[in-house]
């Protein structure tokens, strides 16, 4: 076969950690510290991020010399999937923990790692992704934000869009053009760590369909970026960006976005479940088991230093379709539920309105299917 999902399992230590995370979540909910809300990209709570940082649940796989915890990708997966399954407010730290930190570990300088990884692991600083632009969405290699070499650094000019929480986060890793692409359109790109509080960087929230200020337009008005904020080499931007994708596409945030709705419907139905509700819960559970096994395979492959990009794209497309399907299923079952809790109604509204973003963010389904097709040898 042209793709590979070997079977891995969580070791007993990871299952012990799961019990710990569940106890923590139960205690947080009982104390009313947050309400179950939006998904990984919208439920923003810096104090929560600091609390889980203090527990050692951020930067879990990073070396201890950068305040990481040297645990495995599987331990990290336990924490992320349990927090997502509980609809906990993970948005503030999500990007830094998932991909900015690992990017700096792989391509960043020693000084960058020493400066940024410890506060990332403590949940004190938060990162955004600066990739899309007004004229560059799925066609990321066409970015036009330009970094021009000046004495001691670079000046950045251009604009990024859909930059989630750029108005509240501290830094963005910005993909910009440092040279001409020439015949190779993936050449001449570089990534920079950009201070979002800099006066020449202006983040303006773009109110989304749900009426929320989450993503932004970010304008760089000849913003000065010191030399030591260049990540990796000029010209290495494309390779670096694509190396983030397996981390970005295979995680549980790609199939758990509607789990809150499922659990809320289950709670409403529990006393008197109809056969249709039982069937829907079962069909959902079966697919969830398959997706979770696939996601675990990719996490383990990443731990082993492999680059399962095809597998990661495949999971995201399948997972997004799954999480969107559940909305239709558990909306249609509304009349089978003896009561409609506030949690069910709010989860139904929230998932329904947000669901179009799921199959766009982190790679559209069309791009993902193209990657899968390339892996199959079709292009």
């Amino acid at each position: 076969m042209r793709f590979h999902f070997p079977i891995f399992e969580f070791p007993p230590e990871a299952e012990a950690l799961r019990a710990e995370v569940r106890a923590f979540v139960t205690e947080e909910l009982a104390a009313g510290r947050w309400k179950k809300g939006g998904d990984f990209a919208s439920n923003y709570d810096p104090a929560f991020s600091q609390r889980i940082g203090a527990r050692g649940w951020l930067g879990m796989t990073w070396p201890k010399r950068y305040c990481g915890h040297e645990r495995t990708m599987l331990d990290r997966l336990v924490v992320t999937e349990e927090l997502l399954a509980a609809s906990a407010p993970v948005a503030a730290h999500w990007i830094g923990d998932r991909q900015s930190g690992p990017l700096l570990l792989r391509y960043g300088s020693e000084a960058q790692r020493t400066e940024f990884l410890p506060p990332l692991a403590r949940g004190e600083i938060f990162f955004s992704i600066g990739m899309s632009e007004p004229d560059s969405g799925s066609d990321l290699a066409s970015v036009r934000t330009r970094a021009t070499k000046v004495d001691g650094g670079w000046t950045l000019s251009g604009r990024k869009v859909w930059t989630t929480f750029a108005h509240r986060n501290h830094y963005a890793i910005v993909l910009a053009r440092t040279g001409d692409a020439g015949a190779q359109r993936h050449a001449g790109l570089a990534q920079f760590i950009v201070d979002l509080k800099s006066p020449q960087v202006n983040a303006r929230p773009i109110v989304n369909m749900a009426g929320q200020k989450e993503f932004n337009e970010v304008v760089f008005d000849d913003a000065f970026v010191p030399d030591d904020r260049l990540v990796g080499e000029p010209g290495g931007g494309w390779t670096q960006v694509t190396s983030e994708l397996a981390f970005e596409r295979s995680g549980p945030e790609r199939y758990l976005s509607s789990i809150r709705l499922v659990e809320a419907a289950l709670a409403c139905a529990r006393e008197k479940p109809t056969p249709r509700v039982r069937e829907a819960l079962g069909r959902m559970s079966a697919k969830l088991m398959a997706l979770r096994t696939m996601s675990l395979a990719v996490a383990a492959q990443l731990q082993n230093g492999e680059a399962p990009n095809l597998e990661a794209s495949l999971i995201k497309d399948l997972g997004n379709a799954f999480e969107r399907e559940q909305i239709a299923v558990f909306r249609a079952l509304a009349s089978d539920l003896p009561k409609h809790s506030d949690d069910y109604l709010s989860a139904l509204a929230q998932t329904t309105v947000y669901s179009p973003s799921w199959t766009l963010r982190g790679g559209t389904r069309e791009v993902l299917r193209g990657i899968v097709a390339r892996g199959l040898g079709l292009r």
Partner: protein
Amino acid sequence: MSIAPVLATDPLVEEAASRAFSDLAEKWFAGKVTRENLLTAVEQLGFAEAAPGDDSGAWLAAAAIIRAQARAAAPIDMALLLATGDRAAAIAHDPSEYFCAATSPMPASASAHAALSLGRCLQIGAALGAALELSIRYAQDRKQFGRALAQFQAIQHSLALAAEEVAACTTITDLALACAEREGIGSPRLPALLDAAALVAGHAVNVVYDMTHQVHGAIGFTQEYALHRHSLDLLRWRDHLHLARGGDIGCAERLGDAALAAGSAWRAVTANMTPGATP
């Protein structure tokens, strides 16, 4: 720190089984052997002895044999033979016909029942892969409007969707296989994994049956081209799998009941997927 996968398949066993069943299938399709010849050959190769008992540790070789038979579309039902030992039933079906599997034998014991379900899922995963592989090669070779079908985005996306279902089916099946291999066919969490695998397999058959035939056009709908062998196998095995487990709705209701009993679909799923757990 590197993490080892749970199932370490033996490439030599896989290759030997693949070659053997390809040869047998080739002879059968060339009209050179009878079904009884096939059965004798399989017995001489020792494949009929690979029946995994109730203990753990016997499933890897059996899985390799079952998958090889299904990939080659060799008309000897190795899942049935290994799960029930019923030699006559293993060659009773007409490979060129699709019929509702309600009359196919159902094993009596719980362990043979689980073994048959696992065998069916392994067969389905392998046949799905074979149908997908044929379709990929066909799309690369066949030209229309001056270019290969593979160059059309509509074709690429259809086959990508098919591949996603194949991946889901083989992965959940391998999870059930790992459970049987390590905890034995009587593992208390295996029935839930098999229910899940049966549901995922059923959906995968629907999607792959649709997409692979659509990509092939009329040639796929003939008995002279190989796709139909996999398609008919898939339809038969899916029906038999679902009937054996009380229908796909029965599978779904049991999993749903586990979620309701746990008070959380997520907790039921994680419990079923935890090695050694007794849900």
